[in-house]
């Protein structure tokens, strides 16, 4: 099997490293943005766009494409970088992040950026929007799948659970959600701000098929997604244990870099660590 091929996995890891460099560079040049949550979700995004999803960067409106919704919209830099690497637009454009007149808004905007499926940024909306797409797929008897990346801070939001009920009530087995469980939110550790555990039990109780994986392991991300594809009659939640700021030593596990751009010295060190 291709996916167990070491070379293939290291190719994905190489892309992830490039995406992390782009992310740091974009945020550094923009002077603001959210590095921590972008870096924690990068491997999931890379696995999706470079292996899992059926999509065509030349035809962003292809009706049968799989859909991805970045519910944690503040991880936009990682999404933009992945979309650029995949060919939706030029990587040169990444430097325009957050600049006046740019197609790359601070948070994803579906009317401006090719490949962005839903405008997000206000937390807790993405899963419900994904459900809408999943209902449309079922109505149209199309086989496309919907992938949603949620942040763990979003588990505080009531609407997340409204949407969780809807997905299972309507048996939306075409929905696969990934929870970027980096255990930190803006004000501190998730368990200190608002206790979330036992999260897996909660999702199970809401009628979801639940898996827990290492969200930085490409093989695990791909295998779990393959398993999700085989589950009939219920949606799947893949709780991805991740590290906020993954890949940059001084950002790892740090709340400090939730929503702050690196300074020049930090930028240079980060790029060095990421092999840039």
């Amino acid at each position: 099997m291709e996916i167990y091929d070491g070379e293939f996995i290291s190719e994905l890891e190489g892309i992830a490293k490039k995406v992390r460099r782009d992310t740091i560079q974009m945020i550094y040049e923009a002077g603001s943005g959210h590095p921590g949550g972008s870096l924690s979700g990068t491997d999931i995004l890379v696995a999706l766009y470079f292996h899992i999803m059926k999509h065509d960067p030349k035809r962003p409106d292809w009706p049968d494409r799989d859909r991805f919704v970045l519910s944690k919209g503040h991880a936009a830099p990682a999404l933009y970088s992945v979309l650029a690497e995949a060919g939706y637009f030029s990587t040169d454009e990444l430097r325009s992040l957050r600049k006046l007149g740019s197609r790359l808004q601070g948070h994803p905007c579906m009317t401006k950026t090719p490949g962005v499926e839903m405008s997000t940024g206000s937390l807790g909306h993405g899963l419900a929007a994904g459900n809408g797409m999943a209902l449309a797929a079922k109505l149209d008897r199309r086989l496309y799948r919907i992938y949603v990346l949620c942040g763990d801070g979003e588990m505080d939001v009531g609407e997340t659970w409204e949407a969780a009920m809807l997905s299972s009530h309507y048996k939306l087995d075409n929905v696969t959600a990934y929870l970027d469980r980096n255990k930190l939110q803006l004000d501190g550790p998730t368990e200190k701000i608002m206790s979330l555990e036992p999260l897996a039990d909660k999702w199970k109780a809401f009628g979801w098929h639940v898996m827990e994986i290492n969200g930085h392991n490409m093989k695990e991300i791909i295998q779990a997604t393959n398993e999700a594809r085989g589950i009939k009659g219920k949606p799947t939640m893949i709780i991805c244990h991740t590290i906020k700021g993954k890949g940059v030593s001084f950002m790892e596990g740090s709340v400090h870099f939730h929503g702050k751009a690196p300074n020049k010295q930090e930028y240079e060190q980060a790029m060095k660590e990421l092999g840039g």
Partner: protein
Amino acid sequence: MVIHWKMESQRKQYGKTLVEIGKERKDLVVLDADLSSSTRTADFAEVYPERFFNVGIAEQNMMDTAAGLAASGKLVFASTFAVFGTGRCYDQIRQSIAYPKLNVKIVASHAGITVGGDGASHQIIEDIALMRVLPNMTVIVPVDAPETGKVVKAIAKLHGPVYVRIGRSDVPTITDEGTSFEINQAPVLREGKDVTLIGTGIMVSRCLEAAEELAKHGVDARVVNLHTIKPMDEKTIVRAARETGGVVTAEEHSVMMGMGSAVAMVLVENFHVPMKRVGIPDVFGESGACDELMDKYGLNVDSVVEAAHDVLRRKK
């Protein structure tokens, strides 16, 4: 003079029209939040159960689900009571429907004080204000049942977000099947040269009655049905101000940032005339019978007549 209006339900017309549209528009999907028997989306659900989704008491969820369906090419109508369909899910409407300009039609019933006995918790008097400040949002208040049907058909053909406000109670029927309707075209229901009475929704009938009353005193009042609050038919409004020299607005909504305020903004920048807004003052409502509430909060014919006299006094 009391006009004896035929009273009809906008909600029934809404449900009936959805069923009609659903026959040709296979892309029509309807959502409701556990109020389908009241909003009458249940009529659609009965005929097209596969294209109806009840989301339970979860309006925020409903609006984002609607956005996802619209993003996948569906024409989506989402209904609930106006109090829950605007304020409770304002963020979802703003972020996921108005900002990306998605094809979602929010048709909200039980708006305003005519909800009656349920009281202030259910009587939203600020929904027009909330919706009209959203970029990309069209805001329509159908005057009666026949117009509700026309509005629903018209917005089904209009791409983009729309908010439609209808009431719980039966309302006076002032139009018929033959009356033409176009979004953004405010019909002049009665010509007049002394003062213009601009009404929206249920208050249009009060304006017509007020015009009859004013005629007895030799006042020739023009009456305009301003069904589309946004985008506004500024031409008709400004022309009325220019030709009659005074304007009264009347709405079953707070006078803060409702239709009257929108008209005032147009006039202040285009043609300044004495003006008076009839509407609910800056207070919450309360339980009571519809007519009692309309009287107590100044939403009756007398209030419009009085406002017209006030404007006339201030005219040079």
